[in-house]
Every structure is written in C-alpha cells, then in structure tokens.
C-alpha cells in the first residue's frame, strides 16, 4: 500500500503553489525595472537620469576661456574670487550658443546688485566691506566710482 494513497488532493494543492510562484516570478520580471538592485534597493538607472539634467550655470572656467580680459581685471581686485555668474546669472545658453552675441546677458543694475551684498547690517561678518547705500552714494549708481570687476578706489575709478 502506497503512503501516497489518497494524497492526490495534496499534490494538486502543492501544484497550485508552484504555479502561483511561477506566476509571481513572471509578473515580477515585467514590473521590476531592469536596473533595480544593480547597486542596492533602488533603480540604478535613476542616477544616470538625474545626472543627465541640463546645466544652467556654465562655471567660471567656461566664462574665462573667452573673457580672459575680465578674468585678468578681476585677479588684482577684491572680487577676484567672486565667480562670473554670481552677478551675471546662469549663462550656459550663452556659453554653448553658436552665436554668443545673440544670447548676450543683460548688464546687471549696480543699484540692486551691489547693495545685495554690501548694505551695512549688524548681522554681517565684521570684516566684510559694507555701507549704508543712501548715505554712501546719495543715490548715485555704484559704478560711477567703482569698477565692478575691481572695485577698489585705487583701481582707477569708473570703468
């Protein structure tokens, strides 16, 4: 007498489990992205997609490749380490354009730009040059006296 006599329903039941497991594997194969688990519990391809987003700030090295005259003028002054796009806004389009003059950035308004950093406030570091704009220039634009690329008064006055 076989021990498996009257056990047919158990084999059918086990068969159902095997089928369900195979179905799970098939569905899993289609719903899990191929790169999931490549580096960890996430989609590895996401890193490449995030890295492929467009750049907007070209970086000062890119600017200086053409505007070496400005880079030289800046070198001697206090703004030597202020990068181009800190004032001129992002210029990747200008830098990668076939015709850079068509995407020429507008000249910043010194009355807005300079005071953003240099308005006197007790909260700013003590050594940082700061003025009360109304008292200091009486409404005159800053570039009447200071060259933005080399702002010291010994640098020869207006640009």
């Amino acid at each position, binding site marked *: 007498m076989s021990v498996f006599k009257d056990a047919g329903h158990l084999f059918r039941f086990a068969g159902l489990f095997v089928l369900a497991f195979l179905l799970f594997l098939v569905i899993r194969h289609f719903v899990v992205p191929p790169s999931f688990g490549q580096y*960890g519990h996430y989609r590895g391809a996401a890193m490449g997609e995030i890295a492929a*987003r467009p750049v907007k*700030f070209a*970086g000062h090295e890119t600017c200086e490749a053409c505007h070496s005259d400005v880079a030289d003028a800046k070198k001697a002054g206090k703004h030597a380490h202020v*990068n181009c796009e800190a004032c001129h806004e992002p210029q990747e389009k200008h830098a990668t354009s076939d015709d850079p003059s068509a995407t020429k950035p507008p000249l910043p308004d010194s009355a807005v730009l300079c005071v953003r950093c240099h308005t006197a406030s007790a909260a700013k*570091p003590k050594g940082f040059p700061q003025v009360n704009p109304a008292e200091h220039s009486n409404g005159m634009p800053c570039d009447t006296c200071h060259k933005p690329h080399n702002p010291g008064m010994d640098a020869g006055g207006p640009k």
Partner: protein
Amino acid sequence: MSDHWWGMLIDIPKCIGCGNCVRACAMENDVPDGHFRTWVERYHVSDEDMTNPEVISPDGGKEGFPVAEEDSKKYFFVPKMCNHCADSPCTQVCPVGATFVAPDGVVLVDPKYCLGCAYCVQACPYGCRYIHPVKEVADKCTLCYHRITKGLTTACCESCPTGARQLVDLKDPKDPIHEFLKTHPVQVLKPQMATGAKAFYNGLDGSVR
C-alpha cells in the same frame, strides 16, 4: 565602488546672507516658489537667553535679509541644505526604494519610482525635503548631481561670492578642502542623530538647531 564621496563645507563666518545660493539653486534646479533645496537662516542670540535664539528666514533668504541694527546681540547666518547623510533616516523609511544613497555618497530621489507618500519628508531631521507641488513626488537637493558628475561644482558654490560654501570630495586626497577640515573645528548639524551628515559647518554656534 565609486571614486568619489561627496560632501559640503559651509563656513559660517564667511556667510553674508546675500541669498545668492538660494536664487542660484532655484534657477539651476527649477525649484518651485515657496519650496527650497537650500535656504539661509539668520540667528539672533540674545544675552539674556542664549539657548533660544530668534531665527528668521524670509522667503528662504532668497532676497537677503532686513538690515539688523547694531546692538550687543550675536548675529550670524546659517545656510542649510540636504546633509547627504551616510546613514540617512530618509532613505531608510522609503517603502519603495525611491530614495537612496548613491555609491558616491549623494542622497537622491528617483522621481519615476516615488509615490509621494512623504514619509521621507517627515523622517528628515533637517527639514530638507518637500513634495513637489506639480510632480507630486519628493524633491530635494541633489548636490547638483548633473553638475558634479561633469566636473563642475554645485550652483550654490559657483554663485557664493565669499566662498562660504565649498563642495568636498572626501575620497580625493588632492581636494584642498581636506586641509581646511583637518585644521578647523568643524561640526555637523544634530550630531546626536547619528545620521552621518556630510555637510560640515565651520564656526557653528551651539544654539543652531
């Protein structure tokens, strides 16, 4: 696994609160208005109550700060951003594996996989995440992953006029910031949380939360 291990150095005594980093970040990454991947806070510590500073951050410091009149009180600016933690609480709570620490140490969100459940927004001890109002997925600082992988620095570092923010590659022995980290008393935010934060602050006051 990777040649890089990215972090950030923030030099508080150099920050002038101009908001350049906040504007640059918003322009570079199309950050929606009213949400911030980086922001600047101004601390105001009074002599009477050293442990409860007054903190302001009008519009994330995007357009700078109101003028502070001279008085005996202690003022300073604290730029904040994702700390790109090595043991990040935000990645641990994600139910679907949509946010992760990349092999180069940058904490990223996979917008195609994110459900927008906002568990991570609650888990971040630094308040660095938000739900994007249009995409309805979690969004945060990517440490300008699209820039640093091309050899550029981040938009906030590029536009900081005083060099108060510096990108650090902790695996690159030639990175000049290593010398700074060795010779200055740097600290991370909320070290008691043991998040393995990689945004290092120089001159961090004890009152900063």
